[in-house]
């Protein structure tokens, strides 16, 4: 209890006991005496405040005029350079700021210096009196009694049933928020597939030029889209599933599990670029650690270990796209991804 209190805590009252009587309290001395302001006593001070308030309002007028200068003189129709736009934006902001602050500060200054500063006292009232409450209860009881709803359970129960059912059509009305016109099963199936298929060329994002295996140097990384993406019906939807990262590393450094031995071309591997956490594109590849990092939530995937999660919130490895080379030496997909890309969902399995 510190060394400031008198004696031990028990006898000082520093720690009060539960049976302490609350009556032993200091009486309320009432509101402290009002201290007059300078302007209350000195008419010259009051006059000075009056001039200050008028000056603030004048600043507001100047601010408004400045706004018009900014709007018509600094701004013009037709193309503006970015620098011009910045200057105009700043001028509009300053004009508005002065126009508003002049009024606001002026009024508050007026209220604080020249309007009465005597605090007044008002009594609180009960939110509603006991009698009003009793009357209200009586009225509600009478109303319920007159409907007879308690005496006629048949009416009551059918009404409850009707009211419970009536809103359900309104919920079903929202079924066609889904504009695809497909069944749930078809949509789940569609989520499992991307534009990748046997023989689809890997092309650069966004130029769309195909990539030769010989173009991919050790340690390099390519942002890849499937050939023909720009002609797809829902281009962005397809792109959101099909984007791929293409990297090359020494095959000796890679741990390759059974069944995936021929999914790479001399250490060139392709992985889905969509994070398995919540779907951000994984844009960062660190060459010397061969880690992939998602900039949104920092999930980190290890390229040497088939992009298994080594840090962060992602729950499973990035799906790998099996690739090979075609007769012309261009990289092509062997097939679609073998599992759904992107964030997990209930039906993913």
């Amino acid at each position, binding site marked *: 209890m510190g060394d400031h209190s008198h004696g031990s805590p028990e006898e000082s009252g520093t720690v009060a006991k539960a049976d302490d009587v609350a009556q032993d*309290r200091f009486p309320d001395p009432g509101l402290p005496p009002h201290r007059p302001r300078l302007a209350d006593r000195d008419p010259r001070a009051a006059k000075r405040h009056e001039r200050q308030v008028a000056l603030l309002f004048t600043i507001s007028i100047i601010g408004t005029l400045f706004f018009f200068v900014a709007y018509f003189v600094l701004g013009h129709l037709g193309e503006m350079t970015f620098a011009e736009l910045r200057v105009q934006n700043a001028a509009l902001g300053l004009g508005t700021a002065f126009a508003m602050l002049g009024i606001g*500060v002026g009024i*508050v200054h007026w*209220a604080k210096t020249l*309007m009465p500063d005597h605090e007044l006292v008002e009594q*609180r009232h009960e939110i509603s009196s006991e009698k009003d409450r009793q009357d209200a209860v009586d009225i509600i009881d009478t109303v319920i009694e007159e409907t007879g709803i308690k005496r006629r359970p048949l009416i009551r129960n059918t009404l409850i049933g009707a009211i419970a059912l009536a809103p359900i059509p309104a919920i079903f009305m929202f079924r066609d928020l889904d504009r695809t016109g497909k069944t749930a099963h078809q*949509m789940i199936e569609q989520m499992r597939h991307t534009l990748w298929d046997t023989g689809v060329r890997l092309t650069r994002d966004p130029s769309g030029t195909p990539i030769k295996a010989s173009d991919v140097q050790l340690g390099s990384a390519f942002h890849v889209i499937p050939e023909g993406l720009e002609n797809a019906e829902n281009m962005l939807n397809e792109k959101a599933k099909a984007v791929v990262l293409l990297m090359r590393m020494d095959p000796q450094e890679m741990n390759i599990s059974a069944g995936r031995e021929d999914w790479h071309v001399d250490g060139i591997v392709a992985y889905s670029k969509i994070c398995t956490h919540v779907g951000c594109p994984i844009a960062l590849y660190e060459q010397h650690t061969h880690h992939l990092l998602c900039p949104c939530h920092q999930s980190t995937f290890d390229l040497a270990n088939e992009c298994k999660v080594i840090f962060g919130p992602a729950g499973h490895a990035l799906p790998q796209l099996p690739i090979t080379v075609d007769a012309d030496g261009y990289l092509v997909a062997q097939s679609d991804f073998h599992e759904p890309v992107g964030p997990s969902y209930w039906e993913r399995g």
Partner: protein
Amino acid sequence: MATTNEYTPSTTTGRLANFVDSRVGASGMVKEFGRKIFPDHWSFMFGEVALYTFVLLLLSGTFLTFFFDPSMTHVTYNGSYVPLKGIGMSAAMASTMDISFDVRGGLFMRQVHHWSALLFVASLSVHMLRVFFTGAFRRPRELNWVVGGVLLIMGLAAGFTGYSLPDDLLSGNGLRIIDGVMKALPIVGTYLSMFFFGGEFPGVHVIPRLYSLHIMIVPAVIILLLVIHLFMVVTHKHTQYPGPGRTNDNVVGFPVGPVYAAKAGGFFFIVFGIVAFISGLFQINPIWNYGPYDPSPVSAGTQPDWYIGFVDGALRLMPGYLGNFSFEWIIPFPWGDNTLVLSVLLPALVPAGVLFMVMFAWPWIERWVTKDNREHHLLDRPRNAPFRTAMGAAGVVFYCVMWAAASSDLIATHFHVALNDVTYWLRILFFLGPIFAFWITRRICLSLQRKDREIVLHGREAGIIQMSPEGGFSEKHEEVDVYKRFLLTSYNDNKYIPAQPDAAGHVSGSEKRRAALSKFFFEDRVAPVTPSELEAAHAAHGHHEVEGEKQDSIEK
């Protein structure tokens, strides 16, 4: 006049008032509000800021709707901003570009709208913290506390739906994250995502849908709640801080006309002016730097708007694996395997859920523990409710750890530390931070209360050092005046209430739990100084202005 009962006006104001009143009966309103007393304190201002920034949002938002095209139709940009000329984008993005570059003052209005939104949620949050820490949510204001909490959630909804509208790269990635979180919901998640986006992400439907939510449903709900909120403030009358002359039965302050109306009205213009100043000089959401939404690129170091940060941070803190244990559970059902994505579900729903549940329930929790069902119109100084202040501090730290986690990458790059270490430390703080915050805050409150006792018993340090004839130095203490003394001694101190038996003499389990909580909260407490204690202290000193115990003891 007495016979006809007709009021005969003699002034211009009187004639005008007579005209209006005899038609709409406004004199009752004027009588009720014209001289209504409002207590004054700087901390009551945050709610006003929230109200005024909301007005600014309505004004600037209406302007923006005249030029914005909420459509995801693919167009080729051909406006004034040269670097994006010829680039394909949605009509929403293109019209936002036009607002910024081809509508005079459009960029200014966009920035006013965005800055106001950030300030709106910030002032709502600070206002709620003020209400919490001063105990203003107690009876009869519990329901208004709940309305305020729903307003905060609606503020987040308004912010998020608006943030996504320009359809730029940054907001598109935000929607992508929402899509991922929706899909993580068991059973219904995939369908919800399909309904929301009108098919697969991103589709061409989501922007117009967000637009109708953003400009109609959400603001309508906010306005409705705002009216209810202010109506209840009038019904309850405003709370006031404790002090001499202020009781639970009165309101001390300034009348609406003219002082309070002038101050509050003037303050609207001040808020407007400050927002205009910020919007003129500080760039916000430069969509032309981000470009249109494309699922492939993303820039590092991007941040959500501040109020979404705590959820985003929680997503970052959650580990996908603990060792070899994966938080993605694959559950075998007779019809096939289903996936329960706990690595997304837990952080997205649990911390925010706990935070809001405790926040909404707190008035009833406190009432249950303290058994205090009285009306409270006098606020608590936060130090005088150590348990509540400590709980609030724990909540703030809990929130801020998640919020900091949303910037974990920036913390790592700015302070040159490993990103993984930042995450590990924040994970530890997520659990230990609130506990430490509770403990430290309660200790600080109790110490401040002891300091108050000290001031009442021995006076305040006068800053005058006196030398005694023996050569000892001591500081002169001045006794506080009666007004200050009343402020420092008049608080309501809660005591530990042991478990009480009910009418049948039985102590129920819930009563035992309540008593345990009561003991935890109130076992350590500092009682206010009583007059008899002060007398005893005076008697002990002889001359009470000088604290001279030590000198006395040396003398002896």
